[in-house]
């Protein structure tokens, strides 16, 4: 039984070679690991590899093939890749629009002030909009020079997480 598993930019091939009780023999990109693999409770695992103790926690992601994996001090987004994922990944790529940037609200909040107007040219670092959430005001700034092509909210409006706020078109394609 083998799959491709994606972690950050790495796509590793993982194969289950053998299993006997808690002892598991598995290969990652050809490197074999004999692990003592134990489930503690829902989503929590203890792994001993060459006597090193690893504690991992898995939180289900947005679909059945995605996980957030937490180690002692780090958090990773991991995805199991199968034919379906590959197809979707390819399709998604083609719809990306490179010269445009949509500023979205990272968390729910309220629009305090809109500092720009539609059609206005903005400089890198210029504040576009101020959002208040959890008693903290955050200024959203342009990362590069560009033009405001749309403003999708109004002042004093409540916004949801990921709601689109301002759409910019960048002047040039420089990173």
């Amino acid at each position: 039984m083998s799959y491709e598993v994606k972690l950050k930019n790495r796509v590793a091939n993982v194969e289950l070679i053998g299993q006997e009780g808690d002892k598991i023999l598995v290969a990652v990109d050809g490197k074999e690991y004999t692990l003592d693999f134990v489930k503690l409770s829902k989503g929590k695992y203890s792994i001993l590899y060459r006597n090193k103790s690893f504690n991992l926690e898995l939180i289900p992601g947005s679909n059945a093939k995605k996980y957030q994996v937490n180690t002692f001090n780090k958090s990773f987004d991991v995805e199991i890749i199968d034919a379906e994922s590959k197809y979707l990944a390819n399709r998604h790529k083609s719809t990306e629009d490179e010269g445009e940037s949509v500023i979205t609200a990272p968390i729910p909040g309220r629009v305090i002030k809109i500092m720009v107007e539609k059609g206005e040219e903005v400089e890198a670092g210029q504040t576009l909009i101020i959002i208040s959430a959890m008693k903290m005001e955050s200024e959203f700034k342009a990362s590069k020079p560009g033009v405001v092509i749309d403003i999708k909210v109004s002042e004093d409006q409540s916004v949801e997480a990921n709601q689109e706020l301002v759409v910019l078109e960048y002047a040039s394609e420089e990173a």
Partner: protein
Amino acid sequence: MIKKVLVANRGEIAVRIIRSCREMGIRTVAVYSDADRKAMHVLYADEAHHIGPSPSSDSYLNIENIIKAAKASKVDAIHPGYGFLSENPAFSARCKKEGIIFIGPSEYAISQMGEKITARKIMTNAGVPVVPGTPGKISSEEEALKIIEDIGLPVMIKASAGGGGKGMRLVKKPKEVKSSLRAARSEAKTAFGDDSVFIEKYIESPHHIEFQILADQHGNVIHLFERECSVQRRHQKIIEETPSPILTGEKRREMGDHAVAAARAVNYEGAGTIEFIVDKDLNYYFLEMNTRLQVEHPITERVVGVDLVKEQIHIANGWELSLRQDELKQNGHAIECRVYAEDPENNFMPAPGVVTHIGIPYGVGVRVDGYIYEGFEIPLFYDPLIAKLIVWGRDRNDSLERTRRALKEFTIAGVKNNLQFLERIMNAEEFIKGDYTTHFIEQNRDFLLKEDTCDKTCEDVVIITAFLEYLEKIRKASPKEMTAIKNNWKDYSRVRSVLKL
């Protein structure tokens, strides 16, 4: 004697206050907004009263509703915690009028100290050094621009009625003046309903050191030494320690005396904090007085050996202070780390959400004050502070080592948080040396935000675990045990296609 207390607050401080009340045999009443029905303080108190919709202006800042709850529950006293109404002179006055003990200072002391310009004058008269700069509350943009031109950059713009870093802006470059001024005033208007500001010379490389004081109703005032609070982000403290690594014994005594003098100058009563700004030559200036309990009060509790909430209640009972200045001593060293639901990599953006797992550190020298539990949804309406880690050690190095251990043991899943960022601070050379200023975070941003490496083995183990969990899920859903699949044919076909790979 106080027998029943309403806690006009939420979050960790409400729970912390209820704890001390419970120890003293005092019954407690929580108040809560719509968003807080499932919050810890509601669960932990003896009684709970609903006081309004989620926005704090409609609930935790709503004096009428809180007084109504206090009367309905027949409490003797109200403890305001920090933030919200704790430094609102009208609330203190209202409690008095209603015959309810306000556990905190009088309307007079709060309003004198709450108004920065007045406070400045009182301090000058009391012989306490103040920050060089132009006094005066400013209500028009023109006036502000002129004053900034007079003092010269850099300056700090502060909300006249402010506190907690809200409505505060540092201005270094001429082109930032206007936008910073507008942003500060807008924030001040939202937070305090008053957009007047106050402008001061900005002190380069400053330390932020504050003194805890206690004053009873009989004229006794003592200080409980200092807290070094220079590690700040967005003008808000995230780490505090005591003793300060830069103070000398002599300077400590001198500043302590000035702190006591400052409290005396407004006939202060209760627990309070005198904040000083200290430059690299240990010159210090009165910055402001916080006329309430501070977030970081537990490090003082640990090193001095007191329970400040109990002291507040004793004072409100009219008792004389049982602590004497000459008997107080700093034993060992304590560090507080503020754990926030926020994203350090995204400019410390608050990050509300559902807490799926918490692992709390325990053991020698470790105290955690928090209010979240597994399954709790952190509301987006309030401060993102979710827990405080307070660590004690025999000396600074010992408490640093222990804080590192405790932070490694501390895990929160489900919401973004700053635990890893705090751990990095504990490993930053400048912090370890102990001579850091309020620019510490800014100047060490690259180090503090550097991603921790996970070596090849660690990465492979992460990959294997996700893989094995996925296999288990598929096995459970395998054709042999199809009866367990709850008739979900879409799942089934996907499993089949997967198995064929």
